[in-house]
């Protein structure tokens, strides 16, 4: 691995070096280099580079090579190819659902022994749970976000609504009021993930404990899907936004007065005529808040020196100072408990009142099933849920077909 990285930095854009034997360009001037496959585009990538530069300054013997891999899906392909060719990076961003596969195959290493206890203990409980597999911590939370309610304050004023909705009933009645006042009340994507959120709020769950079967063909599932269908169909108070459009674009253009989106979308709401605020997601039977984002894991194939260097880097990434800087520059959530208690965070959130909402919801946060081969099932379930929301199939039919899709994905090889 070292050889490759050294050669990468040495190979210029000149034709003369083409086909130059690799060995001629290897003269590693630094003792350890680690590679990091990451998917942080534009602004996010710049900030990651900034932090990494800081780290390298503090640890002059470690070089961190950031490898930008564009989208998560290209990251996933690159990782698959790398592992298949036994040519893994030292560390990489992983979605928790792929991570399960990597844990099962012994491709990533547990971190409990590598990271200081103090650092792990400072992580928010939900992230510790999300990064723990088979009782061991296999990764650190990195670019994490949760979902909040975005609402347009002008529209609310116009419709005579004083406070944002905090229950399903209020969400529905507010959406109706807003729609009557001239703007669609609620923007909603009719996919599995929206359904999953309402399902959890209805006290249901995705899968049975053994993870091989869908568990939502019950009262909770029915309630969740009926609620979505009612908002869109009977009440005509919701705009149905399909996967080909971003929820934030419609909210930004004031197509609808409310939507439920991740806190990381905040920076994209930049229309000077859209005045808005954030609130916790309304609760159903209980509160349940979806999360998103990736973790960073360490590959077992790394050399001991690389592992030690990577551990230092991971520790640096979750250290309160770094995590605070990362959060404020990107809109992702701060991952440490100590940050939220600190004075700098209090001062910061006073100045930017919107940033406090996301962290405040975290006690109710959940993450989706961490099962590697469920993706196609979720896609197909999304299709069935959209069919139900659009009224082409009945709610119970949509529900059972969605469950069937997931069962099939989980059962087959």
């Amino acid at each position, binding site marked *: 691995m070292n050889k*490759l*990285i050294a050669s990468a930095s040495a190979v210029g854009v000149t034709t003369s070096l083409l086909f130059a034997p690799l060995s001629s360009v290897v003269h590693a001037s630094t003792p350890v280099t680690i590679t990091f496959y990451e998917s942080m585009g534009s602004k996010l990538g710049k900030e990651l580079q900034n932090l990494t530069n800081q780290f390298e300054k503090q640890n002059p013997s470690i070089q961190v090579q950031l490898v930008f891999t564009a989208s998560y899906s290209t990251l996933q*392909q690159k990782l698959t190819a790398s592992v298949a060719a036994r040519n893994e990076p030292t560390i990489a961003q992983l979605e928790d659902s792929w991570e399960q596969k990597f844990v099962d195959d012994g491709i990533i290493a547990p971190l409990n022994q590598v990271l200081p206890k103090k650092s792990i203990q400072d992580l928010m409980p939900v992230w510790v749970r999300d990064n723990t597999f088979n009782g061991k911590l296999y990764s650190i939370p990195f670019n994490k976000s949760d979902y909040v309610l975005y609402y347009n304050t002008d529209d609310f004023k116009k419709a005579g609504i004083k406070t944002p909705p905090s229950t399903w009933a209020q969400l529905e009645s507010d959406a109706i009021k807003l729609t009557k006042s001239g703007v669609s009340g609620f923007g909603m994507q009719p996919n599995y993930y929206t359904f999953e959120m309402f399902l959890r709020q209805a006290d249901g769950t995705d899968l049975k404990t053994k993870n091989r079967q869908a568990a939502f063909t019950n009262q909770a599932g029915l309630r969740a899907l009926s609620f979505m269908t009612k908002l869109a169909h009977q009440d005509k108070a919701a705009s149905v936004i399909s996967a080909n459009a971003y929820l934030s674009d419609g909210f930004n253009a004031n197509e609808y007065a409310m939507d439920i989106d991740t806190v990381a979308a905040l920076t994209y709401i*930049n229309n000077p005529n859209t005045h808005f605020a954030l609130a916790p997601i309304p609760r159903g039977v209980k509160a349940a808040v979806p999360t998103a984002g990736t973790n960073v894991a360490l590959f077992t194939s790394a050399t001991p020196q690389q592992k030690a260097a990577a551990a230092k880097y991971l520790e640096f990434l979750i250290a309160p100072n770094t995590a605070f800087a990362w959060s404020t520059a990107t809109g992702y959530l701060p991952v440490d408990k100590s940050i939220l208690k600190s004075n700098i965070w209090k001062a910061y959130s006073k100045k930017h009142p919107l940033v406090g909402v996301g962290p405040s919801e975290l006690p109710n946060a959940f993450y989706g099933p961490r099962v590697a081969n469920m993706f196609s099932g979720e896609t197909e379930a999304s299709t069935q849920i959209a069919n139900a929301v659009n009224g082409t199939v009945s709610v119970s039919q949509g529900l059972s077909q969605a469950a069937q899709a997931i069962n099939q994905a989980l059962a087959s090889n």
Partner: protein
Amino acid sequence: MRKTPIYLFLILLAAFVFVPFLWMIITSLKPSFEVMTKIPIWIPQPIRFSNYGKALSSSPFGTYFLNSFFISMLETIFDLTFGAMAAYAFARIDFYGRKVLFLVFLATMMVPGEMMLVPNFITISGWGWTNTYQGLIVPWLISVFTIFLMRQFFLGLPQELFDAAELDGCSHFRILFQIIFPLAKPIWITAGLIKFVGSWNSFLWVLIVANSSSLYTVPVGLLNFTSDFDTVYNQMMAAATCSLLPLVILFLFGQRYFIEGISRTGLR
């Protein structure tokens, strides 16, 4: 005015093709809050030329352009040379295994490239070629498309041409490179253009083989503007417009040749 219907059809077709690009250019000049609006804004207020600066400085586009150019150029040159050789054999030489081999070549076009991604990466990586130019380029030095296109062209050339050459005692190599290749200008410019465009726009292989932005190409830079939550449309369109320019220039330059009649090349 016999040509009016022709112009009408051309203009309609051109409009169908061009309106998206017009929109792309307009968007590239907009401030971000004018990008997504219920009623489309045709003239940005104010016009933001700075989007171009921001877009191009968001990634090391200079390096990306050089890489794209270098990689596409090299792949095209090799592809045309090897392609012409293979096409000549298939079109003009009666040899054992010709039919079966051609069918095999043709069949390779039908296999989805996605399927070859991992095995090819394993090969490249076994040779220690990850993160090198040769790893990016070598797997793409030949395309069956080019062979097939040239073969079709060579089939159409009059037999006398080849007979005459054989009487002169030319070897097949000399026939190909001294007589046929100059004659085949329209076809190799076409094949070259298509190959060049294909390499210019490919990114998946680059993303998988390269581990450093010093080897990245222009399309990777374009992917930088999209995230899970939203897309920075104006900057993305600015960068996309810039990435088009070299190809447009190449096309304007190339088309002069491929419409040149055969008559000028002395076939008659």
